[in-house]
């Protein structure tokens, strides 16, 4: 499971936890998140996230 961080606001997407608020189930891999999904905190798109660590 990996974590990805928004380069703009620092919000972290943890694949293990998913983001149920937007219907993304725990365990959802980054590449399986829809391309039009955006950062819940600041609204930038997937392309503005960077992988921060491999757990």
């Amino acid at each position, binding site marked *: 499971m990996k974590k990805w961080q928004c*380069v*703009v*606001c*620092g919000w972290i997407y943890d694949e293990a936890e998913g983001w149920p*608020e*937007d219907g993304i189930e725990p365990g959802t891999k980054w590449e399986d998140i829809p391309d039009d999904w*955006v950062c819940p905190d*600041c*609204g*930038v798109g997937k392309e503005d996230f960077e992988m921060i660590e491999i757990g």
Partner: protein
Amino acid sequence: MSEQAPIVIVGTGLSGFSLAKEIRKQDREMPILMITADDGFSYSKPMLSTGFTKGKEADELAQATAAAMVEQLNIELRTHTTVTGIDSAAHQLLIGDERLEYSKLVLAWGADVIRLDIAGDAHEHVYSINDLMDYRAFRQALAGKRRVAIMGAGLIGCEFANDLRNGGYEVDVIAPSDTVMPGLLPKPAADAVVAALTDEGVGFHLETVVEQLDRAGDGVRLSLANGETLETDLVISAVGLRPRTELAAAAGLETARGIVVNRALETSAEDVYALGDCAEVDGHVLLYVLPLMACSRALAKSLLGTRTEVAYGTMPVMVKTPCCPTAVCPPPVNAEGDWQVEQNGRNVRALFRDAEGTLLGFAVTGDYAMEKQALAKEVPPIHG
């Protein structure tokens, strides 16, 4: 112009570094020289409103030093260097007596804070925060202090008010408007933010202005136009930003509210581009993150040989007031329509629709802020 002249990017804020990153995604070798008047730390300006909430010092909000960015992006970077002119006919940038050749020049030098001319002798206690170095100086000055007064109730004033309260400081906000974020939020949504911040302990002094700032011991006494006086330790001036245009205008580039560029980010001078807070893109001056990220992606493609126009989608703005989460997508200027407001305490859903019922803008606070993504998808893009 020599074949080896680099792409020169002036400014290492979010715009400048985003552009360099986008170029490097496609081309590792193209020579890039970045120039900045500050220390070249990479940081995201919106995070400066979150230091206390996240429990971070100024430098912990930074993402990388200048040296790390040079390594990561394979660029040349000159810090503490102030550009003094542009000779676009010669494809040269002026730094004092030095002339520096560019193949393409990108102006990403941001905006200046507006400073008010206020009577009194306490101006050394007044801070404007528009970059990491400003923020670092403010945090140093704040050590051992407990009271902060903020002039201005715009987005930045509100975000700092919330963040400083989260840090345990006594906060007063003074502004001439009758609510917060006028021009950005419709009044019911703005009033929800005022109510939530008031509950957090922020003292609001609206519909008045600071007339005088006097030293009072180690602190400052503020005399307001409504007759009130306030004692505080430090003052933040957050009364707005103005795109930096002077140097561009002096070089003969077309300027208006910002440096005028078309959707390909081209200024009126050949091979000179502008990006971010200094740019007026196709008539839009949007000092927010989403537009500049869209612009830097388009411009990277253009600089690598494929002329590309930016297409602005909807541009919702998230206001970082955790006590009252707020998102807003202002309707276009001159749009015809009406606000329809639903309100349940601090939870406000304000929708701007035209006569046909098309959603052209929205503002949502509190629990309704969660609806921002769904609403943003409904609003037609700026460049349809």
